[in-house]
């Protein structure tokens, strides 16, 4: 790809976010690359691995207790994206700290740990446990508080839609995480995301991640009923790109550093977020399709002096 003239950043060069230096700006999104350990056998035809040039893996969200997730079907392909209702299936914080975190450190995987809970204090408890267990980890760079997963009944929407709750969660985690980056992942299912971003930043978040999935529904035409047992799911993929860009722009206007996520399919989409001022981006649904998606994208965004005329970038 020919890169536009305004793009001069090397996305695979280290950059500072809060108290940490991250190895790069292209990350994988939570829930779309597992715990970052399932792709160590994968390689492209040229030998490139999914970890080449990767700035961070944001882990599948971890909760205080293990969760089995929602009943099947949990994932539906749509013409313009995907609808999921995984329901935060995860091993729980204890198993994560005992097994997963050490494996990530061992594997040298730059890691952001995604956490979810139903009460602000629980974020504090998990952050403290993480800080404790991960004290010696040099590849563990930060924590992302998932304040926005639409598939969990107890937590659910209202949780992350209220600025005070967002602030309380961030504050509870921040005190235990003096030397790791702290991000709050926001829901797009609100009227004004800037207010949530501001609340998170004021409570001590180094940045926010936006967006999580958009509430969506798919109907099974044969039966006339929603495909997902829980009716609603989280809409992700190419169809949410324009929405994610709008939300990120709102957050940038609110003066809060933001990691852009939502609908990124290729390097051009990532550039759209960077153009608006995102400090990094995450690849979700595309990473599920291809374990090399983020690595390819990172490689494609390394400026090589080869820029192009304005007016030629818009379309391939």
């Amino acid at each position: 790809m020919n890169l536009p003239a305004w793009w001069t950043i090397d996305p695979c060069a280290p950059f500072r976010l809060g108290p940490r230096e991250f190895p790069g700006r292209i990350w994988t999104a939570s829930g779309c690359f597992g715990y970052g350990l399932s792709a160590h056998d994968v390689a492209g035809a040229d030998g490139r691995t999914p970890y080449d040039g990767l700035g961070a893996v944001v882990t599948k969200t971890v909760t205080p207790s293990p969760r089995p997730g929602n009943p099947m079907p949990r994932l539906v392909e749509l013409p313009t994206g995907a609808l999921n209702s995984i329901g935060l299936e995860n091993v729980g914080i204890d198993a994560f700290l005992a097994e997963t975190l050490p494996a990530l450190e061992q594997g040298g995987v730059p890691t952001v740990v995604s956490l979810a809970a139903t009460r602000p204090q629980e974020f504090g408890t998990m952050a403290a446990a993480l800080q404790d267990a991960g004290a010696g980890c040099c590849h563990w760079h930060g924590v992302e508080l998932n304040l926005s997963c639409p598939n969990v009944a107890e937590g659910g929407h209202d949780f992350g839609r209220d600025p005070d709750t967002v602030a309380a969660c961030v504050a509870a985690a921040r005190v235990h995480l003096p030397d790791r980056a702290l991000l709050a992942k926001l829901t797009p299912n609100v009227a004004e995301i800037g207010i949530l971003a501001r609340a998170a930043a004021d409570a001590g978040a180094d940045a926010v991640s936006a967006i999580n999935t958009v509430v969506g529904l798919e109907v099974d035409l044969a039966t006339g009923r929603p495909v997902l047992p829980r009716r609603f799911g989280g809409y992700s993929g190419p169809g949410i790109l324009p929405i994610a860009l709008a939300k990120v722009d709102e957050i940038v206007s609110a003066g809060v550093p933001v990691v852009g996520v939502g609908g990124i399919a290729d390097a051009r989409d990532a550039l759209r977020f960077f153009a608006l001022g995102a400090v990094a981006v995450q690849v979700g649904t595309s990473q599920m399709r291809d374990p090399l998606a983020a690595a390819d994208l990172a490689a494609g965004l390394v400026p090589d002096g080869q820029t192009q005329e304005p007016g030629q970038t818009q379309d391939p």
Partner: protein
Amino acid sequence: MNEPATITRSCRGSVLDNGPVSRGLLRLDLRLEVPVNFLPGQFAMLNRSGGRAFVFGRPFSILAVDGDTVSFLYRVVGRGTAVLAELEPGDELTFLGPLGRPFPGPDVVRPALLVGGGVGLPPVAAWLARWGRDGDVACFGGRDGHDVPWDLLGSDWAVSVDETEGVPADHTAWHGLVTELAADRLAHAEGPGTVLACGPVPLLRAAADLAAREDWDCWLSLEEHMGCGYGVCKGCVVPVRDPAVSPWRNATCCSEGPVFPAADIVWEVYGAQASLAVTEPERPPKEKP
């Protein structure tokens, strides 16, 4: 963990050959950018390349690999498989594979009974080609004679059909369910041995019951709708018994499977959840000829 020591490649493949091997069953041969290894029971995710790619790839069991050439058998059931059927030599696909846990390898003394129904053929056919020995028995079931890829099966396979129509004069076929054929063969085998099966859910359940009744081991290749195919999304879970988790836990079909010990499968839950169960409805047993 008995993960295969193969590299999973994410690469492109160009179509060498694509066409029917029986009515409704097509074979696709792809030349990949690089050679791959696989173990019988493993699969690959196939997708269109570039801007026309589906949001997710589609899982297909690997029938055979020869250097950089990999073969599949498939049936058109929806959008994705319809696209496959239109491919011509030279067309390009993306390939992610091999993926998943394979069937166990051969036991030095115990015989294997292989059961494949329809598009469930590839993983068991791959097993037979790689590890089959005298004393192993392979059974393939089709709806009628037109359904059966006679040339591909050759002489190693016993064949069953629900309807005898279309069975060529120089071939014989058992008239009835493939699991009935399998039961008949198992009764004559020097067991107990191991049953390896792939096909629609009713076939899998019948194979599991047969094995349990006769005290054979049994491994089944399951299907679930998949997102990633490599274990990262948790979109493909199947319910398995696990001493550590009560009453059962979710196993990812793509990375902990698709091959599972039959004894681990919680049929009441899997049968109800699997949208796959409805696509090939249980057919009433036929009178044998």
